């Protein structure tokens, strides 16, 4: 975070700053509180002013070897030590090592009677003595305004406070002064008039019975600072400010892929699954199996040896584990191996910002690779939709920046499960799966669409999916002309298709058989005809031969006859050489010549 802010906003030169010790605040203030100056921290009762002051001092004492003095006007040293004991500041140890000093300043109105002119030199002396005794560099006054309750001469108080701030500046200590918030003013007694270098406003707001803490830098002279209201949290280790909106869109987009845990879904996602560090949204109505998809992703990550984190806003961890066991996903073993942590909370437990802060903190502690939030839509119950959306934007940014693959489930309501989510976060998502229930023929079936998946080729096909004992099973839906069928309708249609195909095949076979037969019949007919043809041919040959023989005989007879009658040799038929050709000539020709010869 630090590097991000340093990269985006170079520290303003000239104004030295000291780290406030409050995670996130240094990012907003571009380095911390003004060194050697006073910072006014104002807020209502219970807004965390005292904790702010103590953390500022403890941080300095522990990490920068800058001892700190706390002038406590409201609580005794013992009370303070006990109050912050659970936060692990180790105050008694710091006090023993002379790194921390608490001076409880008791101003009891009942004991005090004003009898004339006075000044606050007593306070100066005590503070000066405290600073000198441990070499303090940091001072906190919590809260100065108690003086106004004990002493009535505000004219004196004001001039003395003005003197005090100047005096502290002269001494070069960096100070935090807390003050109660006033009606219409930052502080009840107008301290902001004197402390004008840096003013921090803490707010504890209740909206819809849910309290949210917010912090705002009202002014910071000579320095760039975030002007928004930033949510903050009083967590196990003190204040945490979440300067999330100060982040730019600078996260690195990797190309590594992670399996969704459902092989068929990986296939739909270009064959490799989701991008690591991307955000995935699955939306659908109640009971469509959104949680099952998240469990698969988590399970796949744990199998790879990665750490996963599930935020539940609907179920208890054991309920989730039991439910996922019923579809063959055993999450309990990952919990035992501490690869999986499940954080469950009612959305209405605290405000959105607190949820966000808690999620940040849990994420920071566990350093998961995969985070599932189930369901994000329930967070809207802890605030307004607008707030929920802004929370999610920051949450998504947060995960992206850390290359955490984030899986969000979104519950859509009623029949209008259109391609939008209730809290309008779909545009922030890289991959969006939409689960729809199709109700036909008295049954509901789930189908999965891949609405978008940035940066990868992905399937445009609708898949039917079933929750089996072995997890999610994706099946091709029946896509016929103009219809998409699922469930038993798909099965019925498939059966119909099969029957139809069988019919067709049988009809085809029958026709083929018929044709074959006809062909064979023709074949045999053809044989008979050929036989006939051959016999006719043979007959013809025989006839020709007979004819030829007859002709030869005739001619021989004529020659014999002529010889007998002593006829002219010229009248004799042509010599024997020509006789074969003459024999081949049409019989009629021979007949004519025979007739002619006869005449």
């Amino acid at each position, binding site marked *: 975070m630090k590097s991000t802010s340093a990269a985006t906003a170079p520290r303003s030169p000239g104004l030295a700053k000291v780290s406030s010790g409050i995670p996130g605040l240094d990012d907003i203030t571009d380095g911390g509180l003004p060194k050697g100056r006073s910072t006014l921290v104002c807020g209502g009762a219970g807004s965390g002013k005292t904790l702010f002051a103590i953390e500022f001092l403890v941080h300095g004492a522990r990490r920068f070897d800058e001892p700190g003095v706390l002038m406590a006007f409201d609580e005794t040293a013992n009370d303070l030590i006990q109050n912050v004991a659970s936060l692990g500041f180790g105050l008694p140890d710091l006090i023993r090592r002379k790194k921390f000093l608490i001076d409880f300043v008791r101003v009891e109105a009942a004991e005090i009677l004003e*009898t004339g*002119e*006075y000044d606050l*030199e*007593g*306070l100066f002396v005590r503070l000066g003595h405290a600073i000198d005794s441990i070499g303090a560099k940091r001072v906190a006054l919590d809260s100065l305004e108690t003086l106004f309750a004990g002493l009535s001469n505000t004219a004196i108080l004001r001039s003395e406070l003005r003197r005090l701030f100047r005096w502290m500046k002269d001494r070069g200590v960096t100070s935090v002064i807390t003050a109660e918030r006033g009606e219409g003013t930052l502080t009840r007694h107008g301290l902001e008039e004197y402390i004008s270098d840096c003013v921090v406003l803490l707010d504890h707001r209740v909206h819809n019975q849910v309290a949210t803490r917010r912090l705002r830098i009202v002014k910071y002279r000579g320095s760039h600072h975030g002007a928004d209201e930033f949510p903050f949290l009083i967590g196990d280790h003190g204040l945490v400010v979440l300067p999330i909106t100060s982040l730019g869109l600078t996260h690195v987009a990797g190309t590594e892929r992670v399996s969704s845990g459902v092989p068929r879904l990986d296939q739909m996602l270009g064959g490799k699954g989701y991008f690591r560090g991307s955000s995935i949204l699955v939306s659908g109505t109640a009971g469509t199996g959104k949680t099952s998809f998240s469990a698969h992703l988590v399970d796949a990550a744990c199998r790879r040896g990665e750490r996963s984190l599930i935020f539940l806003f609907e179920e208890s961890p054991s309920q989730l584990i039991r439910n996922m066991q019923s579809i063959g996903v055993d999450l309990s073993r990952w919990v035992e191996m501490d690869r999986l942590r499940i954080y469950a909370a009612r959305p209405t437990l605290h405000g959105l910002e607190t949820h966000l802060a808690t999620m940040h903190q849990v994420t920071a502690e566990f350093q998961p690779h995969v985070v599932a939030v189930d369901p994000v839509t329930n967070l809207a119950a802890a605030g307004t939709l607008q707030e929920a959306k802004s929370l999610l934007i920051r949450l998504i940014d947060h995960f992206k920046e850390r290359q955490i693959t984030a899986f969000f489930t979104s519950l859509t309501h009623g029949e209008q499960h259109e391609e939008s989510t209730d809290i309008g976060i779909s545009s922030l998502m890289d991959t969006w799966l939409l689960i729809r229930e199709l109700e036909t023929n008295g049954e509901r079936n789930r189908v999965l669409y891949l609405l978008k998946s940035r940066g990868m080729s992905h399937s445009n096909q609708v898949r039917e999916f079933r929750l089996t004992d072995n997890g999610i099973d994706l099946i091709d839906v029946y896509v016929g002309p103009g219809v998409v069928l699922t469930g038993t309708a798909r099965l019925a249609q498939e059966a119909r298709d099969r029957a139809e195909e069988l019919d067709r095949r049988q009809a085809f076979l029958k026709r083929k058989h018929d044709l074959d037969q006809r062909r064979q019949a023709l074949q045999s007919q053809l044989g008979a005809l050929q036989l006939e043809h051959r016999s006719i041919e043979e007959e013809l040959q025989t006839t020709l031969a007979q004819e030829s023989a007859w002709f030869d005989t005739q001619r021989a007879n004529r020659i014999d006859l002529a010889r007998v009658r002593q006829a002219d040799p010229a009248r004799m038929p042509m010599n024997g050489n020509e006789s074969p050709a003459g024999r081949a000539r049409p019989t009629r020709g021979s007949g004519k010549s025979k007739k002619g010869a006869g005449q």
Partner: protein
Amino acid sequence: MTVRKAVSTRTASTPRRAPVTPAPKNRVILRLYVAGTTPNSTRAILAARKLCQEHLDGLYRLEVIDIYQRPRLARDEQIVAVPTLVKRLPPPLRRLVGDLSVSERVLIGLDLRDTTKN
């Protein structure tokens, strides 16, 4: 808590009109905290002494303490504003803040009104 410095500035009890008011059972112990020799300090010291002499008549002990000299004592005694006159005894504990110029209030603060009337 020992008060060394106070010895020098202490106004010793003066047994001038000794047997006026009830027996010395209600001895008044006062401490005046001042910061150096500012006009406020001087006025307060003078006023305190005058007051003691006029109203307490020997039954008191007044210590004047300079918080510059004894800052720890200022802390231990919860001094914020100076001058502060602390009435340690008799109870209740009272802190009279200021230069004691408004003597009416001083007398109220020290429960001395009845004493004056007597």
